[in-house]
């Protein structure tokens, strides 16, 4: 990742946050619309939960050696 990649991502996030707090300030169709930057939080937390959750499930019972069915 080069610096300008991070800058673009940062700008996209800032634009979306600005829009959320200005244009969508009164928007209310779901209960989470009142939580600031909800989708950013959900995106980040969701990704963390998925990565670690799948890792744990993989360790517990999903993943096995490639020759599992040949043994």
């Amino acid at each position, binding site marked *: *990742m080069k610096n300008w990649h991070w800058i673009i*991502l940062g700008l*996209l*996030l800032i*634009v*979306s*946050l600005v*829009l*959320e707090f200005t*244009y*969508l300030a009164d*928007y209310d*169709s*779901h*209960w*989470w619309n009142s939580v600031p*930057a909800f*989708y*950013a*939080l*959900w*995106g*980040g937390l*969701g*990704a*963390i*939960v*998925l*990565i*670690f*959750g*799948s*890792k744990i*499930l*993989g360790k517990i*019972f*999903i*993943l*096995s*050696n*490639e020759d*599992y*069915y040949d043994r």
Partner: protein
Amino acid sequence: MIVELISIPAIILILGALVLPLLPERVRSAAFITFPLIALGILWNLPDGDLLQVSFASYELQLLSVDGLSRIFGIIFSLITIIGGIYAFHIKDIGQQSSALAYAGGALGVTFAGDYFTLFIFWELMAAASSYLIWARRTNESDKAGMRYLLVHILGGGLLFTGILLHLNAGGSLYLEQLMPDYTLANIFILLGVALNTAVPPLHAWLADAYPKATITGAVFMCALTTKSAVYVMIRLFPGWEVLIWVGVIMAIYGTIYALLANDIREILAYSIISQIGYMVTAIGIGSELALNGATAHAFNHIIYKSLLFMAAGAVIYSTGKSKLSELGGLSKKMPLVLGLYLVGALSISGAPFLNGFISKTMISGAMGDAHLEWPILLLLIATIGTFIHSGLKLPYFTWFRERTEDLELKAIPVNMKVAMGVGAFFCILFGVAPQLLYTQLPYPTDFQPFSVYNFVEMTQILVLAFVAFWFLKDHLNTSSTISSDTDWFYRKPATIVEKIFVTFPNNLFGKAEQVVYAIAGGVSSVSKNPLKILLPSFVAEGREVKSDGFSASIGAALSFILFGFIVALLVILL
């Protein structure tokens, strides 16, 4: 009648499958593309209604029922057969070409079937024809996977047919109409049969088992046709079945978790199909006009971007001969075009704005919002995050960007494969920037507007933060040489025991019995040659061996005469 049959798009493709082997090899690939083109031209111009009836026993079968829903599925099935035909243009294997055409014919037949029997016949044709696309890989693994695939689909066909018979027996209509959400035995069997082809867990394992083992070109057809034709049938028969809302959510999350763990690139994409179909199944469960439009639009878009992803993954496998993330890496400078086209598909499936996934995912979430299904919305967003991580980031990162110490030897990718990927990417972008092109073809009229500020904000925040999380946690994702146990465990693991009990044991038993019988037969025949050897064993007298069977010719003749006398006497007494 024969002329009328040719107006059925499915029959054109099946005819093509039969004609193809008779054509010279050099024109076969071009002919392959011609048949779906003709089918597309015909179905584009078909009027709505039940256009062709055939009497069968006491039933009137509807071979060609057209409405908005069947037309749009017919269009995308024909289109993807054309794109798949371009991708497979260099293939010289007539078996694969014919079976792919027959398979697409089956999908079109299902789409335009107006009654259960016609549906079932084309349904089974799809299963049989597609199995060959796995076997054509000609590896030990694909041989076994193809057989498992076929057996599971025979089970699915059996479930469906049982349901159909129960449905007819209970006085149900032969024609495909919406089924009321009553959990009668007939409805449950039909639902199970359809759910198996829709890859609803726990009936889904065939998909992730078979698709990664199919041929490079065969998988492109498979990822587009079987599951989506089943989605079509589900939209037709089960709209508004509320159980499907949660079934879809579970599918979406389930597929995502397995895709995150998979190591084989086409296995990631295969599990991602299950996840994406979850969206469609949830929308079918809602059953509103907007939701059914969303399910249809998402199936349409999914076929385009998923086949693009399978084509790009196939190009990597074609070029490197490797399919596992643990063996790939460092290809970004060597395959920039394939990478670029893959990323178009990857961003589409992730729901990035201005690509086709966005215009249908937002439609489904809009329908969910209208139905106030808040938790399903949030959970499907989790699936979207997962999709972006596994298809949009994990797969391309570990295939193209991760550094590799030793260079892979690359084979040049045929131009036709690149052209087909280009066409796929073109449609991803086209429908992404001009959604009305698709929306006007949907079964119900809609004024849905995907490009709202809210949708932009939502997707941008989610994708950016998911990317950041991936970047810092990517080493926690599995890229080791492992396989995932799934519900196929239940028929794969006991298979060795079942084989021992029902194949190896009887085989050994019969083998032993055969040996014993042969030994007895050998003994009897050797004894029968000269029974006197046993009755009168040789003996030694006065230092000289006397052979019991060593009579002179005259004594032998006398003994034979006596024996003959006995036989005659016996016969006289008996008769």
